[in-house]
């Protein structure tokens, strides 16, 4: 348990980071502002994945599908004349609505079966987006007219708000009874059920919340790039990114995804410039190294230093 002192450090560090992020557009050029926006994007997505997979241990290999659904819904609502902020809310809403039946169906599956069922979800989304031509224009994709789009500053602060909101949601859940019950499900679902935890309701709630965030992020992404097609909205690499970022930072923790996102994005940006094609392979190597040698993520190194208890072990990766 983090003591009061540690919590104060967390709160102060968080406040300083958010303050810097809010002032950044005054001091940096557009390239760095775009880069920061993408870091916020990855943080928000990683926190969403952390919510379902880090906390409950139900590892989702298909979460990027909600991002894609949000991207399409947001883009469509924008072209249908809704203001940008309402389009974002609707994008989030559509993703969350979709997650309700999906959660009830797939969360009955235990461990590897859930992972396998989710692995196809992103692919299904891509196929639907390609085949439903009357709505999505198929492979041609949707282009958003610049007159409808908010400015870069607006998109930047919206993405920052989403990253912050997702993080606060995780922090709140982490300390609440709900979070405790989710972790009980991760440790031993049958035992949790036996002591009276409503596992189905908790799992589905966590799943829907964790779909809401990528839905909103997807809508902002569509406005950021102003063009989406099935391949960019349902990009398989985005799944990989979410998982790598959370595991690298430390899954099931509040700070893990933030530290993970910042580190991975900087590494990726450097690799991107040097070897454009190799950066995904590098993410694979990173995933492998973390799974094998650092199951608690970067956060666990800091923790261990602080605690120095002989019995303190890094948390098993779920």
């Amino acid at each position, binding site marked *: 348990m983090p003591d009061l002192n540690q919590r104060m450090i967390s709160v102060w560090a968080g406040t300083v980071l958010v303050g810097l992020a809010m002032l950044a557009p005054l001091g940096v050029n557009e390239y760095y502002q775009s880069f920061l926006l993408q870091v916020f994007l990855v943080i928000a997505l990683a926190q969403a994945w952390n919510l379902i997979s880090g906390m409950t*241990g139900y*590892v989702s*290999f298909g979460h990027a599908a909600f991002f894609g659904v949000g991207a399409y819904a947001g883009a469509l609502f924008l072209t249908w004349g809704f203001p940008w902020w309402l389009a974002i809310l609707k994008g989030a809403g559509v993703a969350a609505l979709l997650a309700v039946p999906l959660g009830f*169906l*797939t969360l*009955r*599956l*235990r*461990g*590897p*079966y859930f*992972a*396998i*069922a989710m*692995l*196809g979800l992103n*692919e*299904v989304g891509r*196929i639907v987006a390609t*085949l439903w031509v009357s709505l999505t224009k198929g492979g041609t994709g949707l282009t958003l007219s610049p007159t409808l789009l908010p400015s870069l500053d607006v998109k930047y602060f919206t993405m920052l708000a989403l990253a912050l909101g997702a993080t606060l949601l995780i922090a709140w859940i982490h300390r609440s009874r709900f979070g405790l019950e989710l972790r009980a499900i991760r440790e031993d679902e049958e035992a949790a059920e036996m002591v009276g935890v409503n596992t189905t309701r908790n799992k589905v709630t966590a799943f829907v919340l964790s779909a809401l965030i990528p839905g909103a992020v997807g809508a902002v992404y569509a406005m950021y790039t102003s063009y989406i097609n099935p391949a960019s909205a349902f990009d*398989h690499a985005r799944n*990989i990114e979410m*998982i790598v970022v959370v*595991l690298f930072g430390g899954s099931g923790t509040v700070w893990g995804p933030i530290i993970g996102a910042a580190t991975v994005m900087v590494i990726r940006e450097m690799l991107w410039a040097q070897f454009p*094609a*190799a950066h*995904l*392979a590098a*993410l*694979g*190597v*990173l*995933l*492998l190294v973390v*799974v*094998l040698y650092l*199951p608690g993520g970067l956060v666990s190194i800091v923790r261990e230093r602080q605690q120095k208890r002989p019995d303190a072990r890094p948390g*098993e*990766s*779920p």
Partner: protein
Amino acid sequence: MDLLEPEILLQLLINGLLAGALYALLAGGLNLIFGVMRVINIAHAEFMLIGAFGAYVLFNVFGLHPLLSLLIIVPAIFVVGYYFQRVLIERVVGRPMLTSLLATYGVSIILINVGLLIFSADFKSVPVLQGSFLVGELAISKPRTVAGLVSLILSVGVYLFLERTRLGKAVRAVSEHAQVAQICGIDVRQIRMLTFGMAAAMAGAAGVMLSIIYSFWPGSGVDFIQKCFAIIIIGGMGNFVGALYGGILLGVVESFVGGFISTQWAEAMAYLLLVAVLLIRPTGLKGVARA
């Protein structure tokens, strides 16, 4: 054209059986790994693609026929798999299942992207066999026949190995209860290495057969691993023979759906079957109920 003519039904059935035999060979290896070490190898289809690209390179550089390159590729991938188990998979055996899922996912990402670096994202194929055998009214594609029959022979071979030989019995013993097998004097580590080598070699052989019937690129694995999961869940996880039945079933279903509805729906069948089975029995139909 009337779809209900017996010749057309027979044609669809034969096509389905031939495609199914290839699926069975691929999924059989995946299930063997799961049975023996409770590891789901997400990179299994990438081992298949190593076989396919191996056949492609041997054909284009040395002009070697894929049936001949089997003799080189199968042993080579066996050795790769054997040491792959020793270096990597051995570390995740016995850890929580999601550790092995994530580790093999990492391997899959690495292999796909290394493949893209070497071979680019263009579709490749090995056009050695063309045309069809004509049997009465039926026209059966030559490459599909060869690929299907070779796959069937290899699967039966592995089945006989598991059933008849001492080593095969040891593999089954480890699959049933590793600790008891250990006590009985079986070198469990060695058996795991052998199993992974064999499974990788089966995937590699499936890849060589794939190379003569389909075009492929380094990202092709995703479709196939999806199908493999459907197959092993339908047939029973950890059950080698179940994977053979499941593979053939999927092949036939795909062929009929492709013939009667559309090929796009045929591609979605694996996923629909998988979801249907999981909804009926959340732990899979047969085989190991609790991982």
